[in-house]
């Protein structure tokens, strides 16, 4: 079980990773932009601290934190964002599809809610294989009105599948308030299927860890799924295009209030100042090395653009011949 310093380190790593990635977007070193998870780091840090390396997760379009917290190499992750041949996905996935099967990251998914049944299937398969592995799937508040998420709740509950549903409720589905897109409650949706559900302080890594540990124990013990609704706030844009497009949907006052409670400060207050400074310096070094690795990494060869389209190497016709 992670200690306070380890949780702080994960939050700090994700925060600095996102800040450096946003800089690289501005410098046009990252093509296409990103969905920064700044402000939501406690959820990734707390949930993954309750998982084993061989447990699996599925992530979302706002997924850098999850992928890093589960153990992916920040350098190869940054290289992936920069579209490099040595990125996690060899430059084929980018920010929204980062995956690292060696540490149980079954991929970030760019269709809201679509990974909920995939994680449920992975959980079912783990049990079929006689393993006590669990699957954990993240989605935002915007996903709770996707039929496929509710269908996945039903299947997971019917089968008591070892899956943990983690809703990161940051109050906004892009520019629509939760209250304007979701009738009823989020926990109520799970409860309707007989799935235990809890609201968790998603700004506190230790609270998230405690709640997740309980859910993981339930799943490993054969008692089935849990939903955790983690209340959080997105400090930055929905996507970096907002930095130039500047759509108006949150007032500066709201953003300021939302940023008042920062997971970095919450967790940082729990460890000695000297330890915190040492961790910050370590993370800084790690991120410097990660950015250097990413920018020095080779670009993929356009001739390989269709590699991996099929697992068995089936080749398709070119677009011009």
């Amino acid at each position: 079980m992670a200690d306070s310093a380890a949780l702080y380190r994960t939050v700090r790593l994700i925060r600095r990773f996102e800040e450096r990635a946003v800089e690289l977007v501005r410098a046009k070193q990252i093509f296409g932009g990103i969905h920064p998870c700044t402000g939501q780091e406690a959820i990734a840090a707390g949930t993954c601290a309750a998982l084993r390396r061989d447990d699996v997760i599925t992530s979302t379009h706002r997924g850098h934190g999850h992928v890093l917290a589960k153990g992916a190499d920040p350098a190869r992750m940054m290289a992936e964002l920069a579209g490099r041949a040595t990125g996690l996905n060899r430059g084929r996935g980018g920010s929204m599809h980062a995956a690292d099967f060696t540490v149980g990251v079954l991929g970030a998914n760019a269709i809201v809610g679509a990974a909920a049944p995939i994680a449920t299937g992975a959980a079912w398969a783990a049990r079929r294989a006689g393993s006590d592995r669990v699957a954990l799937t993240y989605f935002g508040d915007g996903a709770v009105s996707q039929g496929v998420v509710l269908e996945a709740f039903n299947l997971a509950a019917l089968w008591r599948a070892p899956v943990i549903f983690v809703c990161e409720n940051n109050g906004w589905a892009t520019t629509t308030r939760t209250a304007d897109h979701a009738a009823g409650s989020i926990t109520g949706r799970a409860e309707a299927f007989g799935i235990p559900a809890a609201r968790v302080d998603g700004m506190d890594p230790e609270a998230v860890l405690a709640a997740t540990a309980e859910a993981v124990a339930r799943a490993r013990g054969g008692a089935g799924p849990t939903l955790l609704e983690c209340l959080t706030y997105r400090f930055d844009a929905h996507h970096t295009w907002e930095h130039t497009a500047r759509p108006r949907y949150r007032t500066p006052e709201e953003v300021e209030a939302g940023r008042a409670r920062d997971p970095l400060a919450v967790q940082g207050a729990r460890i000695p100042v000297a330890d915190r400074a040492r961790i910050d310096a370590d993370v800084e070094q790690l991120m410097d090395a990660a950015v250097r690795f990413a920018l020095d990494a080779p670009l993929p060869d356009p001739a390989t653009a269709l590699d991996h389209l099929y697992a068995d190497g089936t080749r398709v016709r070119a677009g011009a011949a």
Partner: protein
Amino acid sequence: MTILSYLKALNRAITDEMERDPTVCVFGEDVRAAVTNVTAGLVKRFGAERVLDMPISEQAFTGVATGAALSGQRPLIEYQIPALLFLAFEQIVNQAHKFSLMTGGQTRVPVTYLVPSSGSRDGWAGQHSDHPYSLFAHVGVKTAVPATPADAYGLLVTALRDDDPVVVFAPAGAMGRREDVDPAALAPVPLGVGRIHRPGTDVTVVAVGHLVHDALEVAEELSGTISVEVFDPRTLHPFDWQGLAASLERTGRLVVVDDSNRSCGIGGEILATAAEQMRLTAPPKRVTRPDGAVLPFAEELDRALQPSRDQLRTAIQTVAKAGGFR
């Protein structure tokens, strides 16, 4: 030799693969009771852990199969109705199919999607009569449309062993076929390898799925005047372009009969490829459903929109007589 029905061939392929490979499992609606008969006997033989009745949640159980495949299982999903593929399209095309490329080859998604009785089932009307194989070929999902019992067996076995998602359409018009086969000779059929059911020298007819049998009947009727070669691609993606080119080297004339809607159907792609790259001595023709067809209910109306033998005969005669390209 023994008589093998198309339905039994599907059932036997699944049974043999479940016997051979303990990771093969079956998902679908009413698969334990086997309402389509395709999964008859499976739950008794392999147990409820491997033969799962699903709630009416096509999107979710299609995604579950993807997750299970990412974790070492080889699920087969049976969809009772071809249009259910539209509900599951996102999970098949945008999820299962894309994982290999998007992850840079980190994983594979071996799932087989089986649609027994695809196309018109006679009187099942607008929402149960689609034949959407061209959609899957278009997006690049491996797509098989077996015409005969032996090919149904062989292609389904291959699909189950394939490391990528594969959709297998078993056309309603072929489900009743029976064939005298040597059971010991039943074998996997590779994807991307067509089959010439009848050799000929004047016109190549490319026929998809159940239409192979119509093409063979028309070829026989015309045999006194026109020598028709019947080419069955068996899989639409990958497609046996080499096999088609070799046939056109012999005939130089092409008719395609395809149960897709006309615009953007596989028939159009076959004509286009032949026109671009193969030997054609006369303008080719295709017989398809109309543009954007929705099959109406009444028998006369349902039939009116499907490719008919009359249409095929006329097309063959026209192409055979057509003046050559200059």
